[in-house]
């Protein structure tokens, strides 16, 4: 191999999706033994660029060189043969198969009948070399998210990838697990691998990478040596203008409790316990944040608190009234509104019109409904008001919701849930995947709801968001509440990380009045 040639060289890459240019004339390269960070906001085109390199998408223009040779991938199989491996944000693993079975997926060159023992030995060999411990016989569905990520990385090493793309690998990890991942990455670069590290977290990029390429709205904003730049400079390139995100949060006295649960137990979709004895309460004039690594029962907790999931034991109360296992409609009627993470799958009906979606939570109420009938003129009027009030950009209220962008979907949903001043809103990942402007909009709306006397329960994977937005912060791990922190901004992040990993810390440990409900 010619060592002077970069491992990967991409030139003038362009990719359009219907109506959107995801990549426009982007140049990018990776050298041997370097961590090249790919930085940009959600929607800047990072994943698209890497999916092109990995052969999943075909570019509409531009060239790709691997070790100096121009190539054209028509499938991920081609990319794999060129030594490119990618660990996706949603791991490409088969949940119903074991670790060793996943290792050899799609590999050719193996005998027809699988030599299990040799395969397992090789897995153990590689896992020892890089400090990635796994049990080859475990099923994927039995593994935690962190373990699954190890399997996904191993999977790429197993197929001798020397260019490894990690797509936002830290989003699903506790701070401690992140450290472990960084160790592995350093080990890999030491062995001569080239790593692409996709992120939007500046600290990680500064700490880990040797070079960084910034994308902004599908275009190249610059490629810099990490050692000769600063966080502020990167932030500026990423967002396009000097923009410091500040939250204008008024000090408000906490009001009466609106939504409470105590010793709540609930099962997950697969029938295993997902929430184990959680007790929390959300009050008027308050945002209660819930932190935790994805999949530790946050969503199930929210669903159980709005009647969408059965409480196996424990109780749910709304303004003091026992509502355990009541119908979802009873919760809606008492002003308990829910913004699910899965916008198109749960929150909206993609094939129906904006107007039809806008009345999903009020189609039985006047004036949109009268007796058995729906008054479509009233529906249209309501939808038009909602769209303008929450600045949803849509051609008309007759447009099917599936044609709206993520930010507009979220605004529509937010508008629908907040429009009649509910007592409490449970928002799960409300800013996930949104650009800065839409993110600000959503946060402002939630804060103004709090000011008007509403209660907010906020679930997020973005710890910064949680710390700056929340009045109190509950930390969840394996379905349990590890503790509820007052004034989370004053608590060291490392402690929150420990709690996310399963350490119970009482608030007194921080020398303040504790509140563990």
């Amino acid at each position, binding site marked *: 191999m010619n060592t002077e040639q970069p491992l990967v060289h991409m030139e003038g890459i362009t990719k359009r*999706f219907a109506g959107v240019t995801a990549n426009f004339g982007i140049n990018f390269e990776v050298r041997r033994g370097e961590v090249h960070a790919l930085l940009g906001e959600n929607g800047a085109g990072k994943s698209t660029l890497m999916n092109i390199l*990995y052969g*999943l*998408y075909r570019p509409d223009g531009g060239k790709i060189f691997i070790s100096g040779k121009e190539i054209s991938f028509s*499938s*991920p*199989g*081609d990319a*794999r043969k060129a030594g490119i491996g*990618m660990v*996706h944000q949603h*791991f*490409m*693993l*088969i*949940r*119903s*198969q074991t670790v060793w*079975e996943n290792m*050899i*997926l*799609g*590999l050719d060159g*193996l*005998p*027809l*009948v*699988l030599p299990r023992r040799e395969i397992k030995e090789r897995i153990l060999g590689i896992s020892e070399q890089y400090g990635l411990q796994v049990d080859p016989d475990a099923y994927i569905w039995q593994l935690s998210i962190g373990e699954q990520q190890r399997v996904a990385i191993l*999977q790429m090493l197993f197929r001798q990838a020397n260019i490894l793309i990690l797509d936002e690998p830290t989003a699903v990890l506790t701070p401690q697990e992140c450290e472990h991942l960084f160790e592995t990455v350093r080990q890999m670069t030491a062995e001569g691998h080239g790593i692409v590290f996709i992120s939007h977290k500046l600290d990680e990029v500064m700490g880990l990478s040797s070079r960084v390429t910034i994308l902004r709205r599908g275009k190249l904003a610059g490629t810099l040596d990490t050692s000769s730049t600063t966080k502020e400079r990167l932030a500026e390139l990423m967002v396009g203008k000097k923009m410091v995100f500040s939250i204008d949060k008024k000090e408000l006295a906490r009001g009466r409790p609106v939504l409470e649960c105590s010793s709540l137990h609930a099962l997950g979709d*697969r*029938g295993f316990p997902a929430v184990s004895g959680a007790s929390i309460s959300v009050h008027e004039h308050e945002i209660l944040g819930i932190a935790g690594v994805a999949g530790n029962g946050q969503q199930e907790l929210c669903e159980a608190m709005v009647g969408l999931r059965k409480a196996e034991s424990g109780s749910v109360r709304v303004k003091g009234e026992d509502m355990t296992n009541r119908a979802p409609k009873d919760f809606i009627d008492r002003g308990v509104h829910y913004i699910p993470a899965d916008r*198109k799958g749960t929150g909206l009906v993609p094939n129906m019109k904006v107007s039809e979606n806008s009345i999903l939570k009020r189609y039985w109420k006047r004036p949109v409904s009268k007796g058995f009938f729906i008054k479509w003129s009233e529906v249209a009027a309501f939808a038009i008001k909602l769209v303008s009030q929450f600045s949803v950009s849509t051609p008309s209220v007759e447009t099917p919701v599936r044609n709206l962008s993520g930010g507009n979907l979220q605004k529509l949903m937010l508008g629908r849930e907040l429009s009649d001043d509910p007592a409490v809103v449970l928002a799960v990942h409300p800013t996930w995947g949104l650009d800065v402007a839409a993110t600000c909009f959503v946060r402002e709306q939630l804060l103004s709801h709090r000011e008007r006397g509403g209660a907010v329960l906020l679930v997020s994977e973005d710890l910064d968001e949680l710390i700056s937005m929340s009045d109190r912060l509950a930390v969840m791990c394996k379905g349990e509440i590890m503790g509820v922190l007052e004034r989370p901004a004053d608590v060291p992040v490392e402690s929150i990380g420990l709690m996310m990993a399963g350490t119970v810390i009482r608030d007194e440990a921080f020398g303040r009045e504790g509140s563990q409900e």
Partner: protein
Amino acid sequence: MEIIIPILTAAVRSGTPILYATLGEIITEKAGILNLGLEGIMLVGAYTGFSVAYSSGSAWLGVGAAFLVGTLMGLIHAFICVTLKGNQVVSGLAITMFGTGASSLLGREFVGFTIPGLSRIPLPVLSDIPVIGPVFFNHDALIYSSYILVLFFCWFFTSTRPGLNLRAVGDNPRAADAMGISVTGTRYFYTLLGAGIVAVGGAYMSLAYTKMWGELMTAGRGWIAVALVIFAIWNPARAAFGAYLFGGVEAFQLRLQTAGTTIPTPVLMMLPYLMTIGVLLFISIKKGKGILFGAPASLGAPFFREERD
């Protein structure tokens, strides 16, 4: 014993067409494609097998032809479901209608004819074992090959590379694609192969079971096979068990009819269908309690690489 053994033997014989159909559907569903056209494919297989065997005088040529025509039906289904990403339920119904109509239309010239069909070959040694011998090893070669097929698929799904890839495509096509497995190719291949095996099940009806052709002769066995796939939780060995169970009910019912029972024939003929509902109900209630795994997760959903969700 004298009464039981003939019933068990008949159970294996009448269960075999359902077994072939169930096995064919299992491998198709493992790839994530739901094929509800079994009834039509079986009928076409039964017709093709019979007409080719009648014209050529070779029952085995009939089996081969049925397999080939079955794969053609599978090709139609695969084209609609994989390439055109059409609705798999409706496509399956269309296959059934088309197959029913085409077999009746073509078969009109063959109604009333009989053929010698597949001959019985008692397996040496094995057929002398008491009970098991006459029940399992005193049949025609198509029954023996169904045993081999069951064992083969059990091994194939768990221990071979293509078997692993097949399961991956059915469970998570996005991941399989990202790992370089061709989702389209896999789905086409197993839809065709599965339909071919289903058609052999149909051919068994006309070549060995009745040794004649009759309009609508499969009488819902294709649909029973669809239900059996769920009962078998996509496991070939359980499929064999289920198919013989149904064969047993049918054999028992026929025996009661010939024995001159007072129970009216139509009531007896309801039994297999009632049992299908019963079995499905049982398995679904069990699944509701979280005991059951094994369904291919992507069953029925088309795959489009550049569609993001």
